[in-house]
């Protein structure tokens, strides 16, 4: 299993280390050609406007969308969740997104850095609670058809998935808990490999 991690800006190294810890082969993706052969792609946390501009300059939008049509799975964390969403509330004028997952997200929904927080979360499919680290996080305001809610916090949706797309508004890569990385690789990437074949 080969999983790409978009390495333009943000916490990509932590995702690579987590993937290696569960035995997946991880590759840092800085240019679109490096997506070839990836069964899945993680778009990490970082600054969504900065990542979006860097993606635009090297034609990432078209290539990621193309690879997804061929069955590549995608998981967006925090900024990554914003980048794969169909609709963004409070985005910059003209802010592009990949439009891969039918959700509406709100940027910086909780406020400024002083409002960033940690909280225990009940996540569907996991037996024990997962410690969510929310940093200037977005939340998910609504989900479309075929999108399942995996976790909520204080009545706000914070984790969702569809057949091959997943979004979390918190940062599993900042904890040592590898359960969501395992979930993505075994439940979404393997499936997309079968569907795509």
């Amino acid at each position, binding site marked *: 299993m080969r999983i790409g991690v978009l390495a333009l800006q943000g916490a990509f190294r932590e995702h690579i280390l987590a993937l290696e810890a569960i035995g997946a082969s991880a590759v840092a993706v800085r240019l679109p050609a490096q997506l070839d052969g990836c069964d899945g792609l993680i778009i990490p946390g970082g*600054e969504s406007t*900065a990542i979006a501009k860097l993606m635009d300059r090297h034609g990432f939008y078209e290539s990621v969308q193309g690879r997804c049509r061929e069955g590549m799975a995608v998981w967006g964390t925090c900024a990554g969740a914003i980048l794969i969403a169909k609709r963004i509330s409070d985005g910059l004028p003209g802010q592009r997104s990949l439009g891969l997952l039918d959700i509406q997200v709100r940027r910086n929904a909780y406020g400024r850095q*002083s409002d960033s927080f940690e909280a225990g979360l009940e996540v569907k499919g996991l037996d024990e609670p997962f410690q969510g680290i929310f940093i200037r996080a977005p939340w998910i305001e609504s989900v479309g058809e075929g999108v399942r809610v995996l976790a909520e916090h204080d009545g706000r949706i914070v984790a969702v998935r569809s057949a091959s797309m997943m979004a979390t508004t918190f940062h599993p890569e*900042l904890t040592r808990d590898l359960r969501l990385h395992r979930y993505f690789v075994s439940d979404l990437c393997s499936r997309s490999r079968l569907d795509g074949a």
Partner: protein
Amino acid sequence: MSENNRETGTLRVKTGFAEMLKGGVIMDVVTAEQAKIAEDAGAVAVMALERVPADIRVAGGVARMADPTKVTEIIKAVTIPVMAKCRIGHFVEAQVLESLGADYIDESEVLTPADEQYHVNKWGFTVPFVCGCRNLGEALRRIAEGAAMVRTKGEPGTGNVVEAVRHMRTVSDEIAWVAGLRDEQLFDAAKQLGATYDLVKWVHDNGKLPVVNFSAGGIATPADAALMMQLGCDGVFVGSGIFKSGDPEKRARAIVEATTHYENAEIIADVSRDLGEAMVGINIPDIPEAQRMQERGW
């Protein structure tokens, strides 16, 4: 603090925010308009200031925290994080900046120090702090005081990368030294570095700093930014280098691109073309010692 099933201001939330800035460029800005230019260029955050370091040098006198109106204007102008500087040891300036909603506070040697012995006790704040360092001991002293991010100091406002390189190499060399020591040598290493044993032990066991380290002070070109990234920093601060140059928009975009693609010389060459005039720059021996900002901080 803990309420509504959530805990704010935890160490993980503070250091984690710095992790999200990695691979990015933080730009000094003095107006809302400059902040927008920085955001459009792909900056991961802006530093809200009254004057950039190059102008602080020219103006002389006492440099203080920016006017709250300025900080608020810049916060309103952009959606990316906004940092602001307080004087070394000036914990009331830090309280004011926290109340204004600054996302990170830089306890900075660019401003005139308010305390010649003590830095701010940063543990008491919900907002995270970044501090400057020239070597491993200084970095660990700031982390012990609660800094959630450090930056090598360089020499601000010079457009001369030589001090940034010196400080980055010093930190890396000292980490390698500590990592190679035997356990019984760590107590003496802690004494030599002027740092706590626990942090020295952490560096020994992990072979790196416990927090994100950016490079600052003298970065003026895309190649400068890539140089610092190849030397091992996690991202860069660009102060005077952008808005003291001929074409700030273009230079800002180019530095962002070079910081991401820091190992790709073709991309760095491409973005370095026709950038217009870089800031003039100052040679370090031409700065009287009393005016060297890097010497501030203890």
